[in-house]
């Protein structure tokens, strides 16, 4: 029997008949990625308050147990801790697989189902890291993965960039649904609370054909994971305070199994005021968030189970007051200014205009029926409501009227079948349909930047996979038909509504091969052709973009982008202590859509503005991600990550805007047990170095790219086993040298320095009754 639990596989094999309080429980602890046995893990049996240490071969033995319900806490340094529940009836042997190299998970586990691809490369951020940094945004947390960067607008928004792809080219899957609302531009962050996730994964393949949406090969997957099988209430409270911005984060999580029904409830509250650069407060950069999610998993029978997932994300975000400017003269003055406009000498907690109110609500229903242990059919339906209001500084008390007010409903439904066919081949097929209804809400007093529209997208995919001991093969194809029904408002007087319809037919194919050269070296080669239909902002943006100081014009004659991508990944376990991973990718995009600066400035009543129009060119993206780790001793581990990416316009040879600069990050972590109860402590130092982005043409920008910079972060933590659960306490310092810097990918670099020094504390209490 193979049961999937949060973060591990558990094999429970009954050996002998039961004897009263004379039962022996034996087990072995392994690294999930490699199968290597993990020596000296600790196994804490809660019911007897007893600690056992696995031997050098990862084996442990617990004797003289009475039958009954048992909880085991398994910990290994540098792994996400694991807590499992089972009923012990007789002598048993369990196999526990821990995620020792979470960054290397080859397969993304989605709600207990097998991963989407047998040959693609993906990396993850695990539960421990998410809980530790739950004050961060989804994009910031994902950037712990090599090759992932963050496109920011100060503290108010952060979007992930994966191997040079972001925004419309990168799909984000929020618990099985394509995150809606991403079409509105680069200053809108994905409306997801990372604390909801058990795991955040990034697929860096050549094509991700099972996912609808407009990805050109990369997908960020946020997954809450299955609910516990433990009939005892499990709880967690997580509190974080950061001095920079005086930011509080409070998370809670509860889950329980009640027979055929399991439930989980999570909440997050965030409250912060003005953040600080090394020399000044960043006025009006506060933030509020109120988030909750509920998951109900119901087992109708051994073969049929269903799940309901509901989440609500609500945020109010302040935008740096000094970044809200009227025209190009203001921008030039702001760029030349030593401090941002409106900088004050005191901290403020309140949020004023310019600001954004963002709400995102999601409901997903899923039902899965197994024909046998592996073949199944799955039906799912989801709806998302995304509401966004943006408030500017306006005349005559209108600051409380939004300048932009959008409401979007996104419906999504999917039918999927996975079945083993002949000769070890497995087939996956799916039909998908998405409907989006996007409306501007009346009362803004401003012509909308994005028109009202509806889009319909039916799609289908078919994938064949063969998994063998040394060789995995995969072939796939998908088709999509995307249509838009757009109602825009004319530029000329008298204003009238213009209705436009578009249709795009897209297809994709891919092939992949993964080969294990030896137990310690694996390589994966992926090739894919994919297409992406232009999004609504690329087709129809019209007007002055808030604070960008440019007139942005869509072009409704754009064609789909066509991408050809090749990725090659190699994982090499040189020995038990040294691991290397290298990913190389090459992508050629025909009809790449980008904002092209136009030669003429447009004269308006606020002065002359540069005009940027969406045009198409051919672009080439290539790069490498490198990761190495070295376990210097059982306690000390060093990890290095290095990423480079190049994006060029093939017609001009210029580098394309928003290409991440080369960056390298280093982490040295010391972690050891303090006592024989398995309580531990750790110390770590992280050093990140970001080079100057010197390859982007200045014609695309108002300001040349900022200088290189390096940051040092420190963190220390300690944990205790209490009578009830485990308490963790951490303290940390970010940018501890209070370095003054500006990052190329942060749009606020025109106006202000990036964040200065920050000290934080974190308290976490987990318990199970």
């Amino acid at each position: 029997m193979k049961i999937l639990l949060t973060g591990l596989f558990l094999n429970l094999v009954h050996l002998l008949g039961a004897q009263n309080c004379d039962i022996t429980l034996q087990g072995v602890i392994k690294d999930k990625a490699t199968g290597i046995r993990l020596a000296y893990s600790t196994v804490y049996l809660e019911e007897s308050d007893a600690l056992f240490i696995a031997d050098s071969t990862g084996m442990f033995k617990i004797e003289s147990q009475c039958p009954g319900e048992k909880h085991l806490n398994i910990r290994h340094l540098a792994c996400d801790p694991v807590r499992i529940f089972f009923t012990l009836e007789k002598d048993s042997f369990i196999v526990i697989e821990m995620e020792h190299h979470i960054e290397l998970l080859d397969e993304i586990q989605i709600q207990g189902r097998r991963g989407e691809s047998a040959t693609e490369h993906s990396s993850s951020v695990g539960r421990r890291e998410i809980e530790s940094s739950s004050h961060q945004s989804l994009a910031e947390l994902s950037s712990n993965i090599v090759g992932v960067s963050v496109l920011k607008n100060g503290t108010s928004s952060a979007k992930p960039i994966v191997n040079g792809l972001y925004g419309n080219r990168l799909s984000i899957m929020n618990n099985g649904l394509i995150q809606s609302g991403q079409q509105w531009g680069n200053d809108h962050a994905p409306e997801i609370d990372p604390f909801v996730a058990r795991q955040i994964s990034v697929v860096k393949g050549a094509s991700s054909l099972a996912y609808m949406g407009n990805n050109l090969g990369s997908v960020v997957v946020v997954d809450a994971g299955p609910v516990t099988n433990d009939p005892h209430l499990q709880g967690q409270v997580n509190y974080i305070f950061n001095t920079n911005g005086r930011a509080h984060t409070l998370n809670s999580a509860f889950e329980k199994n009640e027979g055929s029904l399991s439930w989980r409830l999570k909440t997050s509250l965030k409250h912060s005021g003005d953040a600080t650069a090394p020399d000044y407060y960043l006025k009006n950069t506060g933030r509020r968030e109120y988030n909750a999610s509920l998951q109900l998993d119901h087992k109708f029978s051994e073969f049929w189970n269903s799940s309901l997932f509901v989440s609500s994300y609500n945020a109010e975000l302040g935008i740096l007051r000094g970044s809200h400017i009227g025209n190009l003269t203001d921008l030039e003055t702001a760029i030349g200014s030593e401090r941002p406009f409106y900088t004050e000498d005191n901290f403020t907690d309140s949020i004023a205009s310019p600001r954004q109110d963002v709400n995102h609500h999601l409901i997903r229903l899923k039902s899965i029926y197994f024909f046998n242990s592996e073949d199944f059919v799955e039906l799912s339906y989801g709806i998302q409501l995304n509401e966004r209001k943006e408030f500017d500084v306006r005349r005559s008390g209108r600051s409380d009227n939004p300048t932009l007010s959008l409401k979007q409903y996104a419906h999504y439904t999917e039918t999927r079948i996975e079945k083993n066919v002949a000769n070890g081949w497995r087939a996956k097929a799916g039909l998908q349909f998405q409907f989006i209804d996007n409306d501007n809400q009346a009362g803004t007093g401003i012509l909308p930047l994005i028109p009202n529209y509806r889009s319909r997208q039916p799609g289908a995919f078919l994938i064949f996979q063969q998994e063998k001991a040394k060789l995995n093969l995969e072939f796939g194809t998908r088709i999509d038909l995307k249509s838009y029904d757009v109602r825009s408002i004319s530029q000329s007087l008298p204003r009238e509504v213009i209705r436009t319809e578009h249709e795009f037919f897209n297809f994709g194919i891919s092939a992949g091969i993964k080969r294990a050269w030896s137990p310690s070296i694996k390589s994966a080669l992926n090739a894919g052709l994919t297409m992406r239909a232009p999004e609504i902002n690329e087709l129809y943006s019209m007007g002055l973009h808030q604070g960008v100081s440019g007139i942005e014009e869509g072009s409704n004659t754009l064609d789909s982008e066509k991408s050809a991508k090749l990725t090659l990944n190699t994982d090499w376990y040189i020995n038990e202590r040294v691991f290397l991973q290298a990913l190389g990718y090459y992508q050629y995009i025909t009809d790449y859509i980008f904002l092209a600066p136009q030669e003429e400035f447009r004269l308006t009543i606020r002065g002359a503005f540069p005009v940027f129009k969406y045009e198409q060119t051919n672009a080439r993206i290539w790069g490498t991600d490198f990761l190495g780790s070295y376990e210097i001793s059982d306690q000390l581990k060093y990890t290095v990550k290095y990423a480079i990416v190049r994006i060029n316009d093939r017609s001009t040879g210029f580098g394309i805007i928003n290409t991440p600069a080369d960056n390298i990050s280093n982490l040295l972590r010391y972690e050891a047990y303090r006592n024989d109860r398995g309580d531990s402590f750790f110390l770590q130092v992280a050093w990140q170095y970001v080079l100057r982005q010197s390859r982007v043409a200045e014609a695309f920008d108002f300001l040349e790219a900022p200088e290189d910079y390096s940051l040092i972060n420190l963190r220390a933590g300690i944990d205790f086993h209490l009578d009830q659960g485990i308490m963790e306490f951490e303290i940390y310092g970010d940018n501890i040298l209070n370095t003054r810097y500006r990052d190329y990918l942060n749009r606020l670099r025109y106006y202000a320095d990036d964040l200065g020094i920050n000290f934080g504390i974190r308290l976490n209490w987990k318990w199970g009754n």
Partner: protein
Amino acid sequence: MGIVMTTSCSDDDPIIENEEELITTVIYRMSPVGGGSDVEFQFSDPDGDGGEAPTISSEALAANTAYTGSLIFLDESGEETEDITEEIEEEDEEHQVFYVVTGNSLQISYNDMDEDGNPIGLSTTVNATDSGTGNLTIILRHEPIKTNSGVADGDPTNAEGETDIEVTFNYTVE
């Protein structure tokens, strides 16, 4: 790919917003202090940022003549013309107009002040001196910091704030 374009008039059409905050027209009217006909500079862009290009016109001023300048903001995008100047007057502490002159033939000074005693710039005194030409840039700033250095004297350099209007006229004094 296919496109079909039609003019729409169905129930689910978007509501065309009444752009009540929009300023489409700036008129700088200069009346000779000793009497005579007004001189007007006008910038007009009734369809807003896109569409047709704006029209700019300026009449000649007489040398060695003093004028009283008044600035008028209009919204001419709708069927009825609306005067936005009143909105600026009501929030005079949060607004200031700057007059940036090149050339030597024109001098402009403030003729009004808000409750704090700082200039607004809706009413001005204009002195046309010798014959000559140059440019006049009229800037309306929202939420300037009027106490910053030089701002009360009409220099926008340190004023901060957000530019709502920035229009440039060629002037001639003859």
